[in-house]
């Protein structure tokens, strides 16, 4: 799973969000590493909707503006959980390798 997709799904874990809300949340969650622009965001939302990972929760149309709120599906949540598990295992393997390397041990061990 690519990083923008990961953060989009993560942004929708707690509550449905509209497009701009997703953009803000991904920026915040990624500590500003992932900054999605609307064209990229909606291409991702199109794909995630097709794959059944997110669905439209509700719409708000006010004064010519339209905000659709997207919700994470159970399938999306399961896929995200699996991805988290995969990343955790991958990180554990890497951390274990790094611990065996003397020069890096203090940094991994928290400076001890």
């Amino acid at each position, binding site marked *: 799973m690519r990083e923008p997709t990961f953060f989009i799904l993560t942004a929708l874990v707690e509550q449905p969000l509209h497009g701009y809300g997703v*953009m803000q949340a991904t920026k915040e969650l990624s500590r500003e590493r992932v900054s999605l*622009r*609307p*064209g990229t965001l*909606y291409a991702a939302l199109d794909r995630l909707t097709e794959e059944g990972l997110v669905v439209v929760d509700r719409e708000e*149309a006010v004064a010519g*503006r339209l*905000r659709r709120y997207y919700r994470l599906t159970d399938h999306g949540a399961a896929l995200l959980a699996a991805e988290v598990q995969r990343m955790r295992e991958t990180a554990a393997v890497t951390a274990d390798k790094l611990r065996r390397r003397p020069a890096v041990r203090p940094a991994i061990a928290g400076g001890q």
Partner: protein
Amino acid sequence: MSLDRWYRLLLRAYPRWHRRERGTELLTTLLDAAPPDRRRPAALDVLDLLRGGLRCRIRPPRGAMYRLVTVTAALFAALAGAAVAGPLSSYSGPPRDADAIAAAEGTMGALPAGAARSVAVSDSAFDHTDFVRFDYVGLPGDPGAAVRAALDRLTARGWRVTEPLRRQEDNWGPCDAPTCATPMVYHSFAATRGGVAVTVTGAAVRGQAATDPARATGIEPRVSVTVTKTLAAGAVLTVGGGAVAGLAVGWLLAVWAVQRHRRHRAGRRRVLLVAGVPGLFIGALFVLAFGNLVVGLSLSGGWTPKGVMAPAFVLTAFPTVTALVALSAALTLALAALPGSAGRADPHPADPRDTAPAG
């Protein structure tokens, strides 16, 4: 122009069906994300929207069947584009009369006697290579000697020999049995100069059969000079360009049609399948036939640059079948364009023209 108008303009990069379903929502998000003092779109937003629109136009929907349909249609369109470009290229058609006559005269030192009866213009069924052939009959002496003299003559005039002189024996006649076939000997070579190619072939009855009236009657010793155009880089570029253009147009139309298919109701989708599947199936067979031809000739070493005309050959070999594919494609596109969408439309479309469900 206001920022709102700028964004509406940029959203035209997206296909109409997408603007209809997402236009207002995307516009809202763009305006939400823009700083309050922004008057024109940021350059990165412009690039992002143009890229998003292009991706939306070229990406087939999720699903193996949609992708198979898109790839098949695009490959057939590429074949059709190359087939159309072939006859439009400089390679198509026989050489000019003046070039052909000059080449034959330069090869043999004179035009054939009774030229009106001895000149033929024809084309190869396989590669549609049009040629002009001059048959020299009643020559004094052995045709083999005349061919060797022609080779010396052309070499002296700066022609480049592309196939060296060779001698070949064969039988001419209804069967290979000695009693019914006439043994023949052929001498031939090929040369080129200035965009014109000649193949010179001398043929005569060989051995004792040459003096046997029962077997040699009607088979006159002769030298044939066949003149064709050589393949220019421009012709390859024309045909390659036709293929690329066909691929691009076919891909875009196929993506558009399958996106429309998804947005029609079940009944219309079935009608679209009935109209489109036969054309796709036959189109796939054409693509496979062409691929088989290319691979077969490549492996056997028989592939020549004349293959630029092969797409035209494949699609004109069975014109009725090709016409059926074209009819199926046209009918499918027309049905796909009909109104009636099951997609989720914006309640307040960004562009009022996008409310029409035909896009």
